[in-house]
């Protein structure tokens, strides 16, 4: 370069002189800084090793072919230039200046502004659509619908030829074979893909049997996944009455479809896993309910049994048999008392009888007879004869004496 002639190392330097590293670095820096072309140039390449720090500065390597260029994008420069979000793999053109970074002994490019190119244009569309749909509220957490716990019918929008479909079916077969899968075939890459995906999703809604829909495809390049970044697909997902799980590409791929979907799964396989419960859990749940059922009915029976026990105890307490027993006892008591009373009465009578009998005995005519008196009775009528007027000649009488009777004839 001609301009090089305008600069030189200190005068003492010639072919045999030795300079210090600092002196050399300073020379190099000055050389770069005084070159107008290197101070304002656009360089195009692909970003790799992108790192951004809390300070807001970011660092990356711009690669192209076998060459690479270390780049620094300071926060102030990024803000001033309203730079797009950068990330690995993006094709960008950066504008700035080259300088020698003495401390590391490296040439660095200080970026003042950056713009997306090529694939970068896709990213710009991605960011624009993302911003637009976000502004419409399509990504709002409030729009996300909960997935049904046990989807009976699972709709799948993907290519029937894709390996992703086989992966999903394998998961569904293992985890939840109770389900019924309705495949709504679509193209998943190429210019027709966005409209095809949207139509397939609309058809599932029209059919109306699916409880949940998986929209997805396997991994691929950014171009291959691009259909899932198209507005047509985003709108179809947004208007789906059936909850949608997206499963596009690999873990690191984020698509617009992912943002609109009710649930974003990292891969088609993960989407199938998220869509259904594990049948093993359901076996356990049925088992649990079965046990609870048995326990409950046993409880019921036990309660009834206890009620019966209580009731019979109560019944026994109130039983007329008990009353009868009581009555029987009091009857016994009364009978007893009656007995005693009777005995008492009888002995009382007996005593009185004995008294009377003694009295009677004292008054008995027999005693008089025993003293030598006798009683004369007319045989004819047993009247006692106390006067001569009572008998006539020829009557038969009986004289009672102490030890017997003497029959007599009246002369």
């Amino acid at each position, binding site marked *: 370069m001609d301009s090089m002639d305008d600069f030189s190392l200190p005068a003492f330097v010639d072919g045999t002189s030795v300079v210090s590293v600092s002196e050399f670095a300073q020379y190099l820096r000055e050389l770069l800084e005084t070159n107008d072309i290197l101070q304002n140039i656009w360089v195009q390449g692909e970003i790799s090793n992108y790192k951004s720090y809390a300070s807001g500065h970011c660092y990356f390597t711009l690669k192209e072919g076998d060459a690479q260029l270390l780049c620094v994008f300071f926060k102030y420069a990024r803000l001033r230039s309203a730079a797009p979000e950068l990330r690995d793999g993006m094709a960008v053109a950066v504008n700035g200046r080259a300088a020698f970074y003495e401390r590391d002994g490296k040439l660095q490019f200080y970026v003042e502004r950056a713009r997306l190119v090529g694939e970068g244009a896709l990213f710009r569309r991605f960011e624009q659509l993302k911003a637009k749909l976000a502004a419409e509220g399509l990504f709002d957490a409030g729009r996300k619908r909960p997935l*049904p716990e*046990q989807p*009976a019918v699972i*709709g799948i929008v993907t290519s*029937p030829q894709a390996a992703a*479909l*086989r992966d999903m*079916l394998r998961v*569904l*077969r293992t985890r*939840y*074979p*109770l*389900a*019924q*899968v*309705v*495949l*709504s*075939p679509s193209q998943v890459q190429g210019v027709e893909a966005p409209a095809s995906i949207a139509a*397939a999703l609309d*058809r*599932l809604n*029209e*059919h109306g049997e699916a*409880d949940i829909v998986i929209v997805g495809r396997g991994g691929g390049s950014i171009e291959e996944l691009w259909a899932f970044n198209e507005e047509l697909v985003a709108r179809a997902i947004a208007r789906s009455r059936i909850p949608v799980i997206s499963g596009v590409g690999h873990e690191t791929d984020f698509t617009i479809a992912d943002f609109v979907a009710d649930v974003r799964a990292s891969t088609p396989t993960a989407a199938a896993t998220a869509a259904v419960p594990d*049948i093993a859990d*359901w*076996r356990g*749940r*049925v088992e649990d*309910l*079965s046990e*609870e*059922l*048995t326990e*409950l*009915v046993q409880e*019921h*029976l036990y309660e*009834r049994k206890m009620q019966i026990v209580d009731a019979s105890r109560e019944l026994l307490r109130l039983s007329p048999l008990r009353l009868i027993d009581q009555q029987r006892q009091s009857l016994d008591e009364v009978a007893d008392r009656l007995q005693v009373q009777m005995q008492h009465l009888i002995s009382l009578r007996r005593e009185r009888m004995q008294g009377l009998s003694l009295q009677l005995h004292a008054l008995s005519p027999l005693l008089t007879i025993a003293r030598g008196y006798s009683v004369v009775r007319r045989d004819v009528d047993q009247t006692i004869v106390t006067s001569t007027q009572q008998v006539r000649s020829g009557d038969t009488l009986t004289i009672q004496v102490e030890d017997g009777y003497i029959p007599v004839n009246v002369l």
Partner: protein
Amino acid sequence: MKVMLVGVYSMEQLSFEEAYAQLETVVGALRDGQMPLEQALERYQEGMKLVQYCNELLQNAQLSVQQLNVATDGSLSLDDVDLQ
């Protein structure tokens, strides 16, 4: 989809989800407790039949895969598809 079944239903026509929901209903009713013994026993029998039915469904379940096709007149139809 929560399905509440009331009164008479034919168990053979229930999907697993419906049968399970019904089973939950039965257990819930028994859990609440206040019902005549005869009814409790009926519920229990119904519940055990549902348990058996659910287990059979789980045992014999086989993922069915059908394809939603659209005819030229725009009508939709489900057709069997062999993806093996």
